[in-house]
């Protein structure tokens, strides 16, 4: 079945990327749901074929009957029996599916007993704030729009909203869960295949709902621990005078009103933490690849890249912009 689906996908789509689809599950939860999808496709396909066959047969019979006048009281004994059989078949099919759904739901809930790590994800217009607990110090480590998960471990993702309703959907790993102000939600993921996956906001949340994505990296536990330790460190010091000038502009200029760079005076809260900005795969919640050019373009004209974004354009001279981009691009 999986092969059939994959083949159909290939034929129809001309190449799906594969990192944002429930059809290529890479986590336990997504696998459970995928196997249920297979079951339900078989059952529904069977019923659709039955309807097609019955209707087709009826149309075939019609060829030689259509000339006659109306029949007011037809004898329908056989059809009465067929209706009972049909209803019984539907009941059996629905019972199988209801039970299947119940067991899958239970499997999704059971992962709770195996949680080894908690990550807090906060949805904001239009990006994701992500916080890990530092295993060494117990302090929160903050990043944005990039989630790292240890392979084979069950992680609890706690969801909160800073403004309106969002929905966190990482289809290769799990189904979506809404991010609702006033309603703390959580779900479990148990990734089973390393790699990069993409998630996206699934609940309409305003102008830039289309550009509210995040990348997820699933990596072996040791690599994950190294990454987390790296994220726990303060922002890298500037390596040359241009970067130093950039640092001054960022940490003492308007950027610091919204952004935090740990280890510097910049401690603004409304925007994403930039301490290790350059270590991330993408920029502006999955909108641009993380390159120095993209960074420079984004800072110069955020409204052109993401119309309506809450990030204002800051007027910087070209040389200042170069310095800022040079500094930020070095924040590994």
């Amino acid at each position, binding site marked *: 079945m999986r092969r059939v689906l994959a083949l159909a996908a290939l034929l129809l*789509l*001309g190449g799906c*990327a594969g990192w*944002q*689809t*429930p*059809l290529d599950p890479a986590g336990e939860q997504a696998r*459970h*749901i995928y196997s*249920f999808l297979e079951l*339900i496709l078989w059952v*529904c396909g069977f019923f*659709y074929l039955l*309807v*097609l066959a*019955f*209707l087709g*047969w*009826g*149309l075939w*019979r*019609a060829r030689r*009957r*259509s000339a*006659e006048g109306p029949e*007011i009281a*037809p004898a*329908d004994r056989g*059809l009465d029996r067929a*209706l009972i059989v049909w*209803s019984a078949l*539907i*009941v059996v099919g*629905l019972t199988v*599916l*209801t039970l299947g*759904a119940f067991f*899958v*739901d239970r499997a*999704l809930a059971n992962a709770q007993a195996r949680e080894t790590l908690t990550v807090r994800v906060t949805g904001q217009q239009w990006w994701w704030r992500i916080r890990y607990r530092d295993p060494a110090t117990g302090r929160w480590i903050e990043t944005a729009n990039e989630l790292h998960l240890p392979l084979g471990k069950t992680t609890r993702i706690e969801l909160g909203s800073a403004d*309106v309703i969002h929905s966190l959907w990482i289809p290769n790993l799990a*189904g979506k*869960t*809404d991010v*609702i*102000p*006033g*309603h703390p*939600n*959580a779900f479990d993921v148990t990734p089973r295949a390393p790699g990069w996956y993409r998630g*996206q906001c699934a*609940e*309409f*949340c*305003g*102008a830039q*709902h*289309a550009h509210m994505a995040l990348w997820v990296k699933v990596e072996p536990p040791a690599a994950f621990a190294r990454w987390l330790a790296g994220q726990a460190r303060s922002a890298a010091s500037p390596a040359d005078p241009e970067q130093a000038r950039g640092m001054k502009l960022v940490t003492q200029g308007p950027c610091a009103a919204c952004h935090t760079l740990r280890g510097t005076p910049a401690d603004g809260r409304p925007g994403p933490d930039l301490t290790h900005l350059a270590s991330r795969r993408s920029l502006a919640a999955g909108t641009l690849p993380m390159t120095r050019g993209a960074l420079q373009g984004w800072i110069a004209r955020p409204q052109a890249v993401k*119309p*309506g974004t809450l990030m204002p354009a800051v007027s910087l001279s070209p040389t200042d912009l170069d310095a800022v981009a040079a500094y930020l691009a070095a924040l590994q």
Partner: protein
Amino acid sequence: MSPPAPFPDASRSQRLAAAWADPPGLWGFLTTVDHKRIAARYIVTTLLLLFLAGMVALDMRLQLIQPDMKRMGPQMYDEAFSLHGSTMLFLVSVPVMEAMALWLVPLMLGQRNVAFPRLAAFSYWLYLGGVLMLWVPHALGITPDIGWFEYPPLSGPAYGPGHRADIWAQMITFTEVAALAASVNIVATILKLRPPGMTLARMPLFVWAQLIASIMTILAMPAIMLVTSMLIADRMISTHFFSPSGGGDVLLFQHLFWFFGHPEVYIIFLPATGFVSAIVATFARRPVFGQVPMVLSMLAVGLFGFGLWVHHMYAVGLPRLGNDFYTAASMAIALPVGIQIFCWTATIWSGRPRFQTPMLWVIGFILTFVIGGLSGVMTGAAPLDLQLTDTYFVVAHLHYVLIGGAIFPLLGAFCYWYPKATGRMMSERWGVVAFVLIVGGFNLGFFPMHILGLEGMPRRIYTYGPEMGWGTLNLIATLGSAMAVAGGLVMVANGLLSLRFGERAGADPWDAPTLEWACESPPPCYNFEYTPVVEDLVPLWREGDLPVMDGMSLDSRELLVTSAVEGIPEYRQNSVGPSIWPLVAALAVAAMFIGSIFTAWAVVIGAVPIGIALTIWFWPTRQPATSGPFASRGR
């Protein structure tokens, strides 16, 4: 079978016409209480909006045809999908079904008007107010931009400044009051104005469908009126129903919205099953197989329809066991709908079918709607829905259900009753062309969306990057949609040209079994010269002339009231004549609704003109009754 004319009497029709005719000209247009004129207005308005909202949809499809298109920015796209969804659900799908009922039910019951003719006029004027409420601001550049569902906090005072959200909320109030008025009218007409002999068991399936849908409307609509009023209160007078920081709950909105929103699907779908049943019986040339299972199925749908709203909310984090309960309930509704599909197919299988355009639409309906029903089973299963909800899979599903399940039967119904309404036949050849283009284009356009959803494409995004790999399928989807729109234009052209060039139809061109085919085409203002008497489900297929009864006044407007279950004549009821006051009352209500966007005091001050208009409207002008239950109180 020819229309009944047992006692040819030329003066009879003249006297009836004198009693039932509208005043001429514009005054007649504004004051009419003829259910056919009101319903025709309703239908023409909904069709115009279907076209406009369809064009908005095509515009969105052009924006999505390839990655990174710059045709629309996010603001314009958000306005487009909000306008499209709000129009299609509130201003097209529900009203058009009610309009079909207003037009057809009295004819199917052999009556001369609906139970509350002025209420029908009031309903249309208010509905028109709702239409103008949404589209006039759109023309002025103030379009709601947060979807047809307007979830807070996005629609609340903090995130939805200006009046866009208020316009949406009051558009709802307009249309829901109009829908309630129409539904009450339909229920009363069906229960008390059936022809002698039409027991509930002899009632056509179409009338059953409209009865159940109307009762559902009466039960479901208050929830949405409540929730939009609470939203307006939050926005205007700082209540905190939906603000988490003030102790409110955003999920309350979703519960109330979907407590209306899910039954709404069946309020749209049930009348469509009524069209299908009527068409299938006529063209398979036998009564629909399984009248009793069909009626029970519709009742079950009406009942279950209120017990599954939570399946729109599986991802909001409700208790899992609750989700499983609603999964089972959502699955259960597939049984009655499956039984209906079986009964129609069995009717075709065992009948003597002819394949004119109305029947083609039924076949298109079965092939398309069953896919929508099965994808509904998929989205109804809680764990799977966590992957499907808010993706293009749901976009595909809901269009398969609403277009395949409701619009296809509606188009079939237009083809079927067109000769009755106009006295002319539509072109069969162009009807087939339109059918092929619409059904083919629709399936080509919307089937790929299932796959797009499974490939991770979320709903309501104004653009996507080329790296997502969604371009090809979106291109196909846009081409298919364009093809369906072309088919729609062919169909409209066919309808307009046939008005002039179509063959004359006669009273009963399809040799159909139900009463509406017994009166002339188009029906005169009084509908029937004599009141038909019904002895079974297919009165016009009986040998010999249709039995009729006489004794209703020829010189004043009277309706025959019968008992609710057995259809036994009880008394003659005076029926009201033309009046300007429904329009005046609707204007007064409109002034209050529009004013309440700007100040809460409008509700208080606006009540005065409404009270005056209603007082004059209901001022008794009739003589005391001399027969019927109120006779004893007369002199």
